[in-house]
């Protein structure tokens, strides 16, 4: 967090010089770091809620593929992505409806994206969204071509305060795990054979048997 505060502070100081030609770049850098700081502070707030076991989900029915596409679009505009050489691709089946808390799942995806871009300086991040009706769950995978997960960190990857970067709080993946488990799902990570890491989570397609849900599902599959 202090790294982002340092960047905002210095860029804001530089902005005070009105004749500087790079002022537009400074504004972008401030926005980029402020957005990162926002995510980190949300993580801290949620962390206290999770420890007190007071995190409540506001579930709604929405298309997870569309949500992820729009998040990636925002991410391309707002994050460190702009100055990196990372290519992000999203593959999603059509109409991957889930009954879930869209804000919370967005938080999971943004945390995973932030992680992946932090460690993948140059390369690809590919996200896949699949519905598995046979198994009644939706699977999201995010594969990067970064250095992979450090063996020292791996056993406690989803535990609180685990971090291998100096700019993180070590809470992002812990919060992701809590959110996914609150949805009745699971989250895990593994290193790829050819380098890089893959983070995956799955959540049940139906966690309630309401008629409304059944109706929507049958309509989607036509």
């Amino acid at each position, binding site marked *: 967090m202090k790294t982002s505060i340092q960047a905002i502070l*210095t860029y804001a100081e530089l902005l005070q010089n009105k004749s500087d030609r790079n002022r537009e770049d400074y504004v972008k850098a401030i926005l980029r770091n402020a957005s990162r700081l926002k995510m980190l502070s949300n993580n801290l707030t949620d962390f206290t809620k999770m420890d007190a076991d007071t995190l409540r989900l506001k579930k709604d029915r929405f298309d997870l593929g569309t949500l992820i596409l729009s998040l990636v679009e925002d991410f391309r505009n707002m994050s460190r992505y702009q100055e990196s050489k990372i290519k992000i691709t999203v593959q999603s089946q059509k109409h991957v409806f889930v009954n879930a808390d869209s804000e919370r799942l967005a938080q999971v995806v943004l945390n995973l994206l932030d992680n992946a871009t932090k460690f993948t300086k140059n390369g690809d991040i590919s996200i896949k969204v699949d519905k598995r009706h046979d198994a009644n769950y939706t699977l999201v995978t995010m594969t990067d071509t970064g250095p992979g997960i450090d063996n020292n960190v791996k056993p406690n990857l989803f535990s609180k305060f685990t971090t291998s970067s100096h700019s993180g709080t070590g809470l992002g993946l812990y919060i992701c795990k809590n959110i996914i488990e609150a949805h009745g799902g699971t989250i895990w990570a593994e290193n790829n054979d050819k380098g890089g890491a893959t983070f995956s989570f799955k959540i049940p397609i139906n966690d309630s048997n309401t008629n409304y849900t059944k109706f929507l599902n049958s309509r989607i599959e036509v």
Partner: protein
Amino acid sequence: MKKILVVDDEPDITSSIKNGLQRKGFEVDTYNDPTDALSNFKPDTYDLLLIDIRMPKMNGFELYREVKKKSSDVRICFFTAFEVYYDEFRKMFPNLEVKCFIRKPITINDLVTHINTELEKQ
């Protein structure tokens, strides 16, 4: 003109600090990868090194130790968000003398004050 080397793995930090220090009349080189900083380091080039502590590949302490082998009288300030590392440093390198630890976040003016104080010591 005093010449400073800044090593920090966050490009936003090196880029903004470089701009800020240049405005205050310093000449500044930066590296985001400490191993690049080490391989390109030449003795008697810099008046002061400003080094982040927690970096991938090689932490700031290790970089300092290696740089010291190339130039024994190099002057350094660690630039870190984590004051806890001061104790770690003492344990790891009891024989290395470093008195300058600058805490992030800091304004450019305060950073310049720290840098000037360190430069005046010599």
